[in-house]
Every structure is written in C-alpha cells, then in structure tokens.
C-alpha cells in the first residue's frame, strides 16, 4: 500500500520546518530521504509516524485521506517507525520489548510469557535467520547491534505496510550494517514500503529505489535510482547547494573582497595534533583579526573540534596553545578567563535561560564586571545601562530589557547570545567560537549576524565559525578548513572560494 504526502507544511513558532513537501512512498520500494541537519527530515518522520501534526497538507493511504493523531494511530494504519535513538525498555527482555503493547494473554489478563517468547523468536527467525540473539535477556545487557535488531523486530511485530528507519546504521559496526542492508532488501521484496533516513549517502544510493532530497524544509529534488545511478557527489550538491541557478556567482561575489591581515597579528590559537573522540585536527593557527570557517557534512567532526577550543576537556590528546600559553585540559572557566568565548548552537539549550529576561541573559557571563567587589553586589543601574547599550549597538529588537528572552525572534536571541560576551567586557575576549551562528535565524537577521562576526574580527579577535551553511561561511571567512570523516582534510584560501570547491572538499573529490 502506498502512502502519499501532499504539500505538507509544518510551522514551529519562528521556524518553518517543512514547506509544502510532497512525497509518495510506494509499496515494494525503498525510499531514501537525505538532507543536512535542519533540512526537515526529523519533522517529516514525526509527521509520518503520528508524533507531530502538520500545519497544512494531507496524508493519504490507498487513495483515502488519513490523519495520524498519535503514534498509535499510525501503527494501527500500518506505519511503523524505528527511531534514531533507542526506544526500548531497558529492563525488559528482547522478546518482551518486541511484543510491548501487543502482548498475547491467557486467562484474559495474564501475559502469556511463553507465547511472547515464541512470537518474538518466530519474527526473529523470519527476518534475521542468521543472527542469534538472546531474546530472553534484558535488552540493556545486549550489545548495541542486537538492541537495534530488537527495535526493528518490534516495529515489524505489528506487520506494518510502511516501515520508517531513521538513521538505523548510525552506530552499527560494519558486519551488522551488512545484515541490516540485507533485511531492508528483503522487506521491500516482500512488498513493504521502506523509508530510509540516513547520513551515509553511499548506503542510501546502494539501497534505495528513489531518493528525495530536502533542504531548509523544502523538497529540492526527487531522484529515481532504479539502477543505483545516482552519485554521492550529486546528492551532496543537492543537499548543500542553495538551489537556484546563478548561486555559484553569488557565492563568488561574497568572496571578492579580501581582508588583509597585519603581518604581526598575534597568534591566538595554535593547534597541533589536537584530537578527541570524534575529531582530529593536524594543525591550525588562527591569528587575531582572522576568521576561519569550518565546514563538513554532519558528523564529520568540525563542530566537535570547534567546541573543544572552548572546552579543551573534550580532547584526549594533542597540543593547544592559546595566546602562546599551553592550555592542557583547562576548564571552561579557565578558557573564559584567558579570553575565549563560545556562542553555541541550540541556543535555548546551551546559551539561554528561558525564564529569564533579556537583561539577565545578557549579563550572565559578565555581571561580575558591573558589580561591587568583594561580595559582588549587583549594581542594577549599571547592569541596566550596559544592557541598553548593547541592545542599541547590536540592534536587538525587543520591547524592553525586561522582556523574557523566549519572546524574541531567533535572530535577536542569537544577538543576545553574542552580546553576553561583550557585557562590560568589550575587547576582553580574544577568541570567539561560533557554532551554527544563524541556525533558526531569518534572512534579514542573518546578514546582521554576519556583520557582527566580521566586526569582532576587525576589532582584533580571532574568530572560528563552524556552520553547515556554505554561503554563510563564504561571506564571513578568510579561509576555510574542510572536515571529512572526523579529520581536517582541506584548507581553502578566500581567493579560491566557490561552491564547487567547498562541496568537493566536503565530499573528498579532488579536481
């Protein structure tokens, strides 16, 4: 049975997660959905599985309109989801998890444990004949790969017609990936419609009959892949390209002006063999006044590396000198004291206190500067004046300094997140690390944030920007480091900036 999504739109307050997306999922075929973080994959999956309701648009199955008010409704209509993060009950056995919610009973209300075990084993034998899993053991005692198999079996227990797999192989070892791939083929051969969401593009190309590419909540392409003719390069192009023709030039335009750096500019960041669990940086020098952009596909380590410059404890080995001083495993506080600042991604989780006002959020990192020592009496007047000064200087749109931060738009929240490091601290910070600086920020405010980043460098700070928005990187960066598979792979000078060069560097294609 096929399921058709027509003009699905999902509006969150402040962000348009999906914008008129139409997709047809056909029985007996594997449908891949790819896109960078924030492209709308998760929202799409949530709508398909009934966890989220679309703002506009329709779903229909076999020509009949349907609405999944909750995940249970989706399951009873034959749509099952294997979610990205574990959805198993850790202290139940594998068999109990597989039958969870659909337990066979005896004497009307007692769980028939033998039947639970039998059903689970039958299902396992049917779909994973070569894998031996101890279905009678608690799942938290099982290896991760087995847990994934159990999650899939649980989704299959309700005999779905549509199976959605959200990043199923993200954490699987190679051998288990193979058996999962075999399973996906078997399922579609058996007539099931399979939706595969994955960051591993080669996997998508090998498995899927058709591929939909999402970008910024819009469907940018739908490719037929019957003979696996789509290339990785083609997908990356579609995922990252800002779409319309002529964009190459727009990117190049931004790259025309080159900032000149004073020869004697101080080296602020000096890295050698710096590595952590998910990143490795051979060597990098960033001087005051310079903006270095970090690019890469999701999971390629550039965000983790950038974060480690403010949280050195995330690194396990290597050398990091900050203004010629060895950092070692310094704490965030030490880094702040030496003059490093972080403007993190997911700002409401990492940077802001939702209940607090603009003023309180803005003064969080610098309030001691406007307070009376030694006990730190807050001087309300000075705090307020400094807040108003920054609201004005950064052009923050807020009805007052006492407005709650949640009432601001994404762009203005982000400005507060930057202003935090200028609160009574103008010129104190010598390094600014930005992660996804314009995540959830509308177009107009993006420009202002970019100007803000450049102005920090112009006033003598070293700036590092990790972003999945290539156009943004092209606008602000003096040079770019591209990450692949957790390592820094390429350096690109500003005069060479172009979308093609960026994408080649990210995808690992040499020209």
């Amino acid at each position, binding site marked *: 049975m096929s399921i058709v999504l027509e003009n699905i739109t999902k509006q969150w307050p402040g962000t348009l*997660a999906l914008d008129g997306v139409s997709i047809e999922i056909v029985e007996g075929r594997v449908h891949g959905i790819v896109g960078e973080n924030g492209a709308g994959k998760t929202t799409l999956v949530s709508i398909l599985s009934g966890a989220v309701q679309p703002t506009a648009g329709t779903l229909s199955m076999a020509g009949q309109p349907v609405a999944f008010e909750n995940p249970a409704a989706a399951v009873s209509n034959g749509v099952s989801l294997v979610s990205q993060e574990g959805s198993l009950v850790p202290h139940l056995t594998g068999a109990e998890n597989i039958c969870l919610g659909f337990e066979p009973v005896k004497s009307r209300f007692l769980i028939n444990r033998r039947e639970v075990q039998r059903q689970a084993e039958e299902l396992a034998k049917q779909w994973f004949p070569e894998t031996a899993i101890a279905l009678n053991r608690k799942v938290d005692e099982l290896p991760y790969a087995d847990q994934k198999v159990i999650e899939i079996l649980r989704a299959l227990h309700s005999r779905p017609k549509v199976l959605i797999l959200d990043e199923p192989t993200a954490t699987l070892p190679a051998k288990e990936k193979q058996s999962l791939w075999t399973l996906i083929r078997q399922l579609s051969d058996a007539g099931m419609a399979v939706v595969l969401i994955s960051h591993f593009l080669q996997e998508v190309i090998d498995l899927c009959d058709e591929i939909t590419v999402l970008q910024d909540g819009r469907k940018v392409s739908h490719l037929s892949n019957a003979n696996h003719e789509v290339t990785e390069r083609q997908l990356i192009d579609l995922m990252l390209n800002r779409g319309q023709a002529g964009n190459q030039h727009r990117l190049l335009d931004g790259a025309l002006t080159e900032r000149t750096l004073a020869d004697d500019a101080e080296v602020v960041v000096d890295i050698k063999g710096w590595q952590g669990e998910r990143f490795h940086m051979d060597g990098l020098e960033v001087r005051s006044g310079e903006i270095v952009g970090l690019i890469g596909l999701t999971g390629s380590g550039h965000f983790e590396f950038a974060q480690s410059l403010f949280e050195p404890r995330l690194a396990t080995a290597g050398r990091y000198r900050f203004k010629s001083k060895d950092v070692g495993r310094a704490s965030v506080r030490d880094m702040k004291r030496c003059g490093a600042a972080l403007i993190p991604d997911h700002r409401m989780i990492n940077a802001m206190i939702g209940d607090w006002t603009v003023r309180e959020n803005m003064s969080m990192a610098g309030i001691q500067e406007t307070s009376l020592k030694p006990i730190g009496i807050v001087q309300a007047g000075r705090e307020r004046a400094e807040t108003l000064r920054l609201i004005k200087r950064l052009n923050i749109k807020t009805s007052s300094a006492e407005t709650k931060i949640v009432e601001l738009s994404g762009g203005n929240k982000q400005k507060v997140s930057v202003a935090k490091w200028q609160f009574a601290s103008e010129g104190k910070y010598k390094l600014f690390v930005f992660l996804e600086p314009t995540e959830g920020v509308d177009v107009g405010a993006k420009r202002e944030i970019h100007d803000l980043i450049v102005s920090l460098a112009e006033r003598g700070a070293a700036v590092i920007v990790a972003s999945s928005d290539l156009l943004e990187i092209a606008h602000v960066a003096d040079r770019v480091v591209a990450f692949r598979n957790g390592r820094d792979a390429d350096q690109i000078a500003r005069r060479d900036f172009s979308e093609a060069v960026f994408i080649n560097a990210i995808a690992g294609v040499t020209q």
Partner: protein
Amino acid sequence: MTMTTTIAPEEASRPMRIGTLIQKYSTLAVLIILFLAFAIGTDRFFTGTNLVNILQQISMLTIVAVGLTFGFAAKEMDLSVGYVVGLAGLLAPLLMVAGVPIPVSIIGALVAGLAVGLINSALVVGVGVPSLIATLAAGSILWGINFMISGGRAIYGGIPADYLAVGQGKVAGILPYPALIMLVIVGGSWFVMERTTFGRYLYAVGGNARAAELSGIKVRSYRVYGLALSSLFAAISGIILSARLGSGQPNGGETYLLDGLAAVFIGMTMLRPGTATVMGTFFGALLIGIMNNGLNLVGMDTYVQSIVKGIIIVIAVSVVSRTTKLKLL
C-alpha cells in the same frame, strides 16, 4: 536533576499575560482574604499580641523554608532538613549539659548542620545521586542518629538561661528574638539572592546548568552552596527550636520538612512563577502561619489544619505545574 528537551526549544512555554497576572497575585489575594476573614470572624485574631505571636510561630519554619529556597534555586531538593533541625536542636543542649560554653555549643550545632549539607552535596555533586534520593537517605540516617545521641529522650535540665533567652526573650519586650532572627535572615537572604552575583549564579545553575557552565559559572560549586545553605539554615532553626522549648527533642523538627516545602511551593506561585524566591517563600510561610493560627482561634482541630494545609499544597503545586514546567527530578 535532568533537563527535559523539547522538540522545538525555541517555543519554550510562554504563559499568557493575563494568566500570569492572575497567578502572580492570586496567592497574595488568598493571603489577604484569609487575613481579613480571620480578622472579621474572630476578635482575638487582629490584635497586636496575636500578630507578633504569628511571627514568632512561623520563625523556625520560615528559616528552614528560606534554606530550602537556596537549594531550590539551584534545582536541588533537600529532604533532610527536618532531621537537621532535630540534630542541631539536640546537639546544642547536649553540649551545654556537658558543660561546653554557650557560643561553642551553638557553633558546634551549626557546624554539624553544615557538615550534613556538605555530605549531601558530596553525594549529589560528587557521586551523582539525585538530591531527592540522597537527602531522603540522609534524613533516615539522621533520624537514627538523633535517637542514638539522645537515647530517645528529651534533653533538658542544665541548659543555661542565657541560651533559653534566644528562643524566649523579646526585644524591648515586644518582638521575640526568634521573630527578629527570622526577619534578619529573610532580609539578608533576599539581599543575597536578588542583589548579588551569588544569587544570580545560583538561579542560573537552576535555570539552565549547561548554559551556566558555558558562561563560565562554577556549576558544581553552586550546587554545593545550595545544599550546604539549606542544611545550615535548618541547623539555625534547630537551635532556636531547642531554646524555645527549653529542651532538645529527638523528633523535634520533623514537621518542618513538609511545611517548609509547602511554603516554598506556595511561594513559587507568586513573584516569579515557577521560581523559588526568598520573598515568595516568606509569604508562603506567612500564609501557613496565618492559617494555622486562625484555624486554631476558630477552634478547628489540628488534624483539620493538616487536611487544609495538604489541600493548599496541592492547589499551589497544581498552579505552578500548569503554567510553568516545574521540573524537580
């Protein structure tokens, strides 16, 4: 304590303005209505002596509740405070009966209270046990210790009169010392929480620990401070209690835990809804005090008071949970 992550963090709860207004002042309205009702309904309520009496009656509760407020600000809940009241209320008399000078005895009791707070925070911050569970266990241990050191009997006889004055004396013959100590503590704590960087950082840690950490705030230290202060204040309350009773009681402070939590919860409905504040807590304790006192004057039995109090707690917590995301565990 964990933070819940929502699908769209940008759309954090935004209570309606009018709703917020009603909520902010409804508790105050209840307080005033109760006050007026008792003032009109009984002739013994609205008298100078009785009002001073109310202040005296709520003083120990308020001090415990203000201590809890420090913990709450950092999102830590201390369920051992009632037994810390008992511990300090026993230790000071025990030391004095053994001939230790008054100031040393008092300091000894305070240090013991502080030590409990530090042990609690070692478990919570060092080991990672949720504060609700760590302090519940600590409370059980303290209950046993209190009976062990007192032999299960009240400690009295040989407690110097100067010590008893702490609980029974009055300033200028009008304001009882416990009420004075309470007012000083409320004022001082208000100042620290609302007007110093210490208070701001404590609230930051409770508001969003990750954001606080990435702003360079010593998150772990402030969690320790929150728990340590809550124990220390409970110990102060215990000293006043024993001075007031003229004896150390092995199960002296047990009621302060529930009433203290009630005061904090009631306080969380006003001023900054969802946040424990010193003034909110003080009003909460005042509400409980006026209610107990008034119901007493009307001639209501203590068990009815307990029922009424329980209902008020449920209402207060419901109000807070409905409009803000009250996250305690």
